[in-house]
């Protein structure tokens, strides 16, 4: 499989604090790739660099063979990378459908076509029945799925998911996992997720990268990763007392 997203020696510091240091990995086209690590490990920083929120201090990010580091978020999205936010940010006073139409309009010629596309996506994510509700009235799991729907509506080649499972119950987690798996299987969409919930990572990802203190400490299949002592220590908790 060709590598769709390539992160090479990327580092980022904030006022002297090194958030991400020298991270390198590649996401193959059509795969589901997970980045895990404790809070503060630099996952969100890494994520934001890919999404264009800020540029890396050094290193390069390439998407489909082209450099994208330092590009603006909207340009990165137009190139085919959709994203969600860790703290969900739907447009609260718009309806669910309108939220998704905003995303769909990126690739659709007009509003009716975008509406059609939006409804397809809403069906995929089991939100069709709630399409006329205001986004602010949704429950957390629904809002999480709405974020995914909105990102999917932009018809990305790569979907960046920032802790979409966080705060969901196991059944709800399973539901999203199934949806994502199906989309990945049916459309070949590449997914990069940042996740805490090991249950989701284990069942979704084909490869996992573990970040700790900004550095990649392990990469491999989920099964291999949970056996790594460094991972267990950093992620599942140290013996403190």
């Amino acid at each position, binding site marked *: 499989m060709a590598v769709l997203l390539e992160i090479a020696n990327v580092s980022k510091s904030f006022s002297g604090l090194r958030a991400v240091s020298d991270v390198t990995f590649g996401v193959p086209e059509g795969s589901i790739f997970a980045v895990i690590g404790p809070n503060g490990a630099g996952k969100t920083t890494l994520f934001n660099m890919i999404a264009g929120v800020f540029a890396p201090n050094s290193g390069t990010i390439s998407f489909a063979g082209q450099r994208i580091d330092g590009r603006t978020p909207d340009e990165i999205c137009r190139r085919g990378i959709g994203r969600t936010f860790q703290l969900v940010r739907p447009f609260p006073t718009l309806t669910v459908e309108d939220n998704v139409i905003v995303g769909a309009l990126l690739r659709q010629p007009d509003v009716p076509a975008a509406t059609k596309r939006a409804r397809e996506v809403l069906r995929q994510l089991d939100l069709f029945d709630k399409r006329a509700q205001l986004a*602010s009235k949704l*429950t957390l799991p629904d809002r999480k799925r709405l974020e995914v729907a909105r990102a999917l509506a932009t018809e990305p080649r790569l979907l960046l998911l920032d802790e979409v499972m*966080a*705060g*969901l119950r196991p059944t709800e987690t399973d539901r999203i996992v199934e949806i994502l798996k199906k989309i990945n299987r049916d459309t070949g969409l590449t997914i990069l997720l940042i996740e805490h919930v090991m249950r989701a990572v284990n069942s979704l990802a084909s490869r996992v990268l573990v970040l700790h203190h900004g550095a990649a400490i392990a990469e491999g299949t989920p099964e291999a990763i949970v056996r790594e002592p460094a991972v267990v220590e950093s992620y599942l908790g140290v013996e*403190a007392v």
Partner: protein
Amino acid sequence: MLTVEDLDVFHGDARALDGVSLTVEEGAIVAVVGANGAGKTSLIRTIAGMYRPARGRIQLRGADIAGLPSHRVCNLGIGQVAEGRQVFPTLTVAENLEMGALLPRARAHRVTNLDRVYALFPRLSERASQAAGTLSGGEQQMLAIGRCLMGQPDLVMFDEPSLGLAPAVVKTVLQTIHELNREGLTCVLVEQNVAVSLKLASRAYVLENGRITLSGTGAELLADDRVRKAYLGM
């Protein structure tokens, strides 16, 4: 000491807490575990008076405190080490600590409390005149704990105290909590470091989607399959 009964909290239209009840005994460490967004922070902030509950009772030593403004709750002896540390970045370390001691209940003990905090965290006294925003994460966490102790609390709620800290620092922080508890401080501990917090806790609750789904002693939950599966990924 603290009892929470049937607490409902809404953020706008979204339900954050749904019928939450828990009990904290004097001198105990009570752990609340749960995923991000499960309502842990909402629970702490509601007890602290920062959010108003839609329904339910919060009692401190038998007195109802639900709906009291946060400064009054603080003055009743419920301290908080908040998520994200919440130090005042442009104030100096000493000024940050002083802010903790502005509570009426703590004003008279300001000097002794300051000595105690500096003894507990010598780093803070070294950096007393430095702006808090320039401290490292671990030092900020110490400052947050120190600032809380300046308020002479009887009960402290720790919200993710190890978040984003290096393992060595996490160890210090958790040891400090353990020590403070041994000196008689009642603690409520919300931690993503599930294994450790369950080990520390005399009693623990699992919060999922705003609801308490499991409770028991720390050891019981540590042995519980559901907890192991959901939070330890095993």
